[in-house]
């Protein structure tokens, strides 16, 4: 018997008991759909988080004073104020460094007319825009001249501007920060938040202004560095380490009084967590596919029992054991593959819907679909073989007399 004949036989058989076939397939449909959808959700979440992290800055390195967390012990991070503006200047002269911005921050009470808000006042340089990947919504950013002469100019983050009731027409107005007047020259484009940290609730002023009016020191809170290309990040990191160890007179093998974090680390962590999540979700979904397979086996066993006489008749008119085996196996496979196909369609639809609601868009992954289809084929053959063998082994005399 040709495969075509077998498939035709299976389809006409399944067509004659549509409800049962549909219910049996439902197990596989749900299994495959949940594998496809949950893996897509995992991957969508990953790409969403990655995109947001990349939004923090292009090829970003951050140098912080003091050391960061080691194991579970936090050793006075940021308490040591060892970085200076001169360090930032030296880093800017290294190869493959696109832009450098040192930061000093303080908290400030900002008053505009009858409204006020408390926010982070960040002293920085014009490179801030490039390094931190912001763009302007209104007005212009702080220029080099303002930094050089410590002008009292301010650029507002989107949230801060909103808190103060500032819009497009507010450029040029004067606000007071801890009692000193500043002129608003621009408002940043909103960027959204990562986790609970809003990157839009802040106010940017020339670094020299903070030093001059609030914090008469040359120490900086952190230095942001934008590296030219992603593949240079490691080498730039190494040369910054060398440079700062030299400048801070730290002997080889000594403990650095600064730390450098890069996005690759963060992305790597996010990536490993989310791929674990994806595997976990896929694994849970696979269990439902397994249950669907058991459903197929169950129905096929019932079917073999019900159709014992048919098997006897087929054998009497010349069917060999392997013809019967093939017939029942192809029936199980038709159920599982048809169910798998419908499951893929459903899974893709569900993941597109979830992606749309969650806002990370829809990524169709043909590998997942192929794996899910392959898996359903496997489920069909594994769970179809045993009932089919039962059928094939029936003694025609016994089968013919079966009531």
């Amino acid at each position, binding site marked *: 018997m040709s495969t075509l004949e077998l498939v035709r036989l299976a389809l006409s058989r399944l067509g004659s008991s549509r409800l049962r076939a549909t219910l049996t397939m439902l197990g596989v449909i749900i299994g495959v759909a949940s594998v496809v959808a949950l893996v897509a959700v995992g991957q969508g979440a990953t790409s969403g988080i990655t995109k947001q992290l990349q939004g923090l800055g292009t090829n970003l390195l951050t140098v912080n004073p003091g050391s960061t967390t080691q194991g579970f012990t936090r050793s006075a991070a940021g308490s040591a104020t060892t970085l200076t503006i001169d360090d930032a200047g030296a880093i800017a002269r290294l190869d493959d460094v696109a832009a450098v911005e040192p930061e000093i921050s303080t908290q400030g009470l900002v008053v505009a007319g009858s409204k006020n808000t408390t926010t982070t006042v960040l002293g920085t340089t014009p490179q801030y825009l490039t390094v931190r990947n912001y763009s302007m919504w209104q007005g212009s950013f702080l220029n080099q001249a303002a930094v050089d002469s410590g002008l009292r100019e301010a650029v507002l983050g989107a949230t801060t501007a909103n808190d103060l009731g500032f819009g497009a027409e507010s450029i040029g107005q004067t606000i007071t920060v801890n009692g000193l007047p500043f002129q608003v020259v621009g408002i940043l484009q909103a960027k959204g938040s990562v986790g609970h940290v809003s990157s839009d609730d802040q106010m940017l002023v020339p670094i020299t202004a903070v030093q001059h009016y609030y914090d008469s020191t040359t120490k900086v809170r952190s230095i942001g560095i934008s590296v030219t290309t992603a593949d240079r990040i490691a080498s730039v990191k190494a040369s910054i380490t060398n440079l700062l160890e030299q400048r801070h007179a730290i002997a080889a093998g000594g403990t650095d009084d600064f730390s450098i974090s890069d996005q690759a680390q963060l992305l790597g962590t996010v990536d490993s967590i989310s791929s674990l999540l994806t595997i976990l979700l896929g694994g849970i979904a696979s269990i439902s596919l397994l249950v669907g397979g058991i459903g197929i086996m169950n129905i096929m066993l019932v079917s073999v029992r019900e159709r014992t006489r*048919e098997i006897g008749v*087929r054998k009497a008119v*010349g069917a*060999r054991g392997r*013809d019967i085996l093939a017939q029942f196996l192809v029936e199980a496979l038709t159920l599982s593959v048809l169910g798998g196909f419908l499951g893929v369609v459903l899974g893709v639809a569900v993941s597109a819907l979830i992606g749309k609601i969650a806002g990370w868009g829809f990524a169709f992954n043909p590998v997942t679909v192929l794996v899910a289809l392959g898996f359903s084929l496997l489920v069909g053959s594994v769970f179809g073989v045993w009932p089919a063998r039962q059928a094939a082994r029936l003694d*025609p005399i016994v089968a*013919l007399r079966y009531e």
Partner: protein
Amino acid sequence: MIEPTPAASADPPPIMPSGEAPGAAAMRAPLIDLRGVRRAYQLSKVTVEALRGVDLQVRHGEFLAIVGPSGSGKTTLMNIIGCLDRPTAGTYRLAGTPVAELDDDGLARLRSRTIGFVFQNYNLLSRTSALENVGTPLLYQGVSRRERMTRAREALEALGMGDRLEHQPSELSGGQQQRVAIARAFVTRPALILADEPTGNLDTASGAEVMERLHQLHRAGRTIVLITHDAEVAQRAERQVHVRDGRLVP
């Protein structure tokens, strides 16, 4: 999967006259040749002998009735003649082929090309059209769908069922179902048609009709072996043998 057998590929007329068949030497040997056939069943610890040494030869073109009461062993005899079962002792040659030497696949192939079955309870495939039912034996001979349908239609038309091709068994009367079963039995042009109580479930008129069809096949040259306990039906056969307690009696 099944290579076309000589009987299927030689393409003789649907009901072939006995004298013109190929292999004249084989024709002189009996179609059915049972010698000292015994069949014992192991029931828990007791051995039951259903057949206790049966010698039976049936020539090509014969119409033989095997008569016996229930429990006489005639069903076991039919199973052995029909290659559904093997003797525990003795030899059985069907169309010259020693059955004992065949494995299950070999038996299936021998059934497929040599025997057509007609059962008491018709044994048609449910939810399957008459046409598909009659085409089923050809399916296992590897005949193409188109040819299957053509030959099945011819067989059904020969039995006056030409207007019931697409009917399912549940839509047919007993007599009609049995005629579909007869069509299925001879669609492969087998040498032997083995009918087990073919009129057992039918009213007198339908039974007469079915018997007439079997006689028609016999007149056209088929070998017919009929198993029955109905003396009236048996009397119309050319030859009768009686089974009693696992043995043939005159």
